[in-house]
């Protein structure tokens, strides 16, 4: 059965109704203000002109006369102005790695990453956050301009549906190009297998831009725990390079150890830069990732 949103059919990777119902009570967590005091869906630590009353304070010259609480003046004969909470608009940047390496796994890492970003996008738009996005390959790919409101869910899904994994990876260059667009900083979610030597540099660039970064590190089971014997030729899915190896137990154990070391390095790197590092497997369900893993790591609340 094909679901429809605003009259458009939902793609297969989009969250279904059950998941959406569970995600309705969740929103992306932003632990610090990002200074975008527009009409948004979330309270800001800054005060503003919204209708939500926060407190009173003594009148100071220059304050808006319209904010003077005349009732208190009538009772106390002193001027107080009403202090109202400001409502902040959070910009959520959804960054999807579309390099060729994302096509491996069953299901592919790309499918899982795209479904997770779709669910996050739906959650953000439903929370009246601004959602922007881009696909990252050998350079900055297609971008999704900042949009707010559920009306743009279908546009977001269409954007994600157009993405396909191919080509090589140059995450740092792609991120640098994305940063150069001078979009407002906010929460950046990067879904990638990080199989590129410059992946840490890309993460660092996002954090340096002022984003609250969440890295969803997608790996597939065959990558983490390969199983083959004999002399085989391993071919890189992206560059086509090949190496010959003998898949004996010693080599495979050494490889697994290397994978563990590599992910630990990434995790430590992210921790030093206050980046949320969320390792997932391509064979996990989107519901599990959204409702458990991302909540455990503080990305959703």
């Amino acid at each position, binding site marked *: 059965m094909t679901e429809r949103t605003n009259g458009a059919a939902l793609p297969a990777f989009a969250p279904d109704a059950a998941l959406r119902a569970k995600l309705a009570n969740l929103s992306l967590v932003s632990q610090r203000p990002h200074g975008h005091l527009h009409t948004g869906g979330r309270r800001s630590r800054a005060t503003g002109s919204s209708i939500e009353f926060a407190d009173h304070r003594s009148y100071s010259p220059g304050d808006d006369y319209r904010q003077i609480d005349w009732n208190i003046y009538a009772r106390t004969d002193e001027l107080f102005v009403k202090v109202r909470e400001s409502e902040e608009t959070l910009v959520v940047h959804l960054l999807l790695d579309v390099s060729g390496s994302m096509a491996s796994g069953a299901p592919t890492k790309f499918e899982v990453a795209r479904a997770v970003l779709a669910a996050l996008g739906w959650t953000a738009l439903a929370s009246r956050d601004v959602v922007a996005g881009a696909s990252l390959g050998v350079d900055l790919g297609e971008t999704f301009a900042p949009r707010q409101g559920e009306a743009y869910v279908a546009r977001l899904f269409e954007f994600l549906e157009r993405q396909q994994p191919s080509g090589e990876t140059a995450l740092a260059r792609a991120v640098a190009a994305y940063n150069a667009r001078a979009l407002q900083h906010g929460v950046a979610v990067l879904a990638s297998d990080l199989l590129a030597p410059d992946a840490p540099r890309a993460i660092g660039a996002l954090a340096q831009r002022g984003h609250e970064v969440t890295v969803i590190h997608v790996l597939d089971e065959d990558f983490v725990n390969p*199983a*083959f014997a*004999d002399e085989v030729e*391993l*071919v890189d*899915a992206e560059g086509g390079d090949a190496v010959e190896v003998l898949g*004996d137990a010693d080599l495979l154990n050494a*490889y697994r150890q290397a994978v563990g070391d590599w992910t630990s390095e990434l995790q430590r790197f992210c921790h030093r830069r206050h980046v949320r590092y969320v390792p997932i497997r391509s064979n996990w369900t989107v519901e599990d990732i959204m409702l458990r893993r991302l909540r455990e790591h503080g990305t959703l609340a």
Partner: protein
Amino acid sequence: MNWAAPLAFAWAGLTLVVLVFFLLRPRRQRIVVASLFVWRRTIQARADDTWLAWLRRHALLLLQLLTIVVFTLALARPERLATVELGPPVAVVMDVSASMAIAEGDGTSRIERAREEAAAFLNSLDDDRRTSLITAGAVPRTLVAQTSDRAEVIRFLSGIEPEASHGRLDTALDMARSLASPAAGGIVALFTDQPPVEASNPVYAGVRTVVVGEPAPNVALDSFQVRRRLDKPDTVQGMVAARNDGTTGAAAEILVTAGRGSPTSRAISLTAGERQILVFDDLPVAAGYQAEVRAPDDGLSADNLAFASLAEPSRLSVVVVGNDPWPIVRALQAVPAVTAQAIAVDSFDQDNSTADFYVFQGFAPELLPSTSAVFVQPPAVPSLGLDAPTSADTHPLAMANSPLLKSIDVGDLVSGSDVTYAPPAWAQVDLSVGERALLAHGVVDGRRTAVIGFDMAGAGVSQAPWFPLFWSNVVRWADPFAPLPDGAHLEPGRPVRLIQHPRSDRVAVTNPANETIEFTMPKPAVLDVTVPGAYTIRQFVGQELVAQTSIDYVPGIAGRIGLAGVPAGPGATVDSAQRIQHQVELWPWVAGLVLALVLVEWWVFHRVRGVR
């Protein structure tokens, strides 16, 4: 390290096959992975042991090649010469006389019991003893000589069967003593159904005798011969030798039948081990004769019949090679039972000549015959140690007891154009002129040889009255079928020519007197067998022993001693220091290594594939 089968190295060519298969193997599987990023880090971490990684990647190929190499080594049968200390030797003498075929009450024959007893005796011995196995039949034979391979002896033992004749235990025991002298700590064990009649008989001195079979008489015909009577040529005289090989005395009746006529019988009584000869005179002339012995309790009837026929005596074939042979030929033709033939020097074809002995007149062939040879005024013959002849200038002096001058008055000898020679070491001088010999004889390389300096063609010699008698003496002495005058009780036959091992360049023969004679190949080696007993013959390439065997000399059948292809295997080379040198085959160890390699391959193969 030697290789018993070096041609097997050709199997190493299999390595090429394996390499070809390796090169033609299916291409390796291609697996597309998300990234080589981590793989390169892993490989880089192992880059320090690149050669080890290469070995690991090609472990199966290397194991296969190694397996083939080792397998080839195993097929080439490596062996090394080992020296081990040995215990005193043992000689087992098996009586294979006809009586050993007698079946006892339980149905087993005496030879079967003897085999069982001998096998049990051999199995009770220490492993370090060299063992010989001798059969005591009409012609004693050494089946196995001084081997440390006990299984080989048992195998030969199991194949021993009785013969249809009596056994010559005395000769067999002599041979056994020469192989395992009891005086030197050796053991001679005799398995027979004939217990020693006299314990003090020196034949049985030091011999462990195991008697098999129940006491019973065994009367047998030992020999049966017929001949015309010299005084009455129209009648025939028959001689029957009867023998009791049993352990109890027996009365017997001997019957001799001429043709289809009526038998003539005699009654005799034989004690255990006794032998009697009966003469039957005045038998009629017939085509054939039969002798039979009948005894009531005879244990074996298979040896009770014998047959004989009148036969003309064999004639000795003598070839005289020379340019004026007829005086000698005429003298030889006067000798009874001699056929003489004259051949000119130019017509002499030694390869196609089969004479019993030769007379060479003024000539010596390049290759000396293997039988008796008489040289009349020969030129210098280096192989015989004869120098160039010189004229005799004084009257010769005869030596006493010369067999060639028997019944000849030395004073009748006429010295005309005679020549003399420096006497070789092997020669016994019959007539000497000063320090030189006018007539000499001796045995060289097993060949009876005489050198005559007389001018046989001269009228003074050929017409002398002693001339036919002289040649009769020569024939009598040079007859290769006659015993050598050394007092040996064996009768040597033709000289024994040793057959060379294909690789050997030297042969060493150790006779029963422990004397070693060496021959250098390719000079024909003719063994002088005058002493009965065991001869050990070893063949060498340089100092390397390539073949050896031990034989006992048996007259009449050992004209050739085949050494070619006799490997120095289980049979041992024995020296007086009680050590044995034998080739130890190493291929079982190498084959075990092959098996281990195959197991390792199997383990590696499954270990690699177990990852899957």
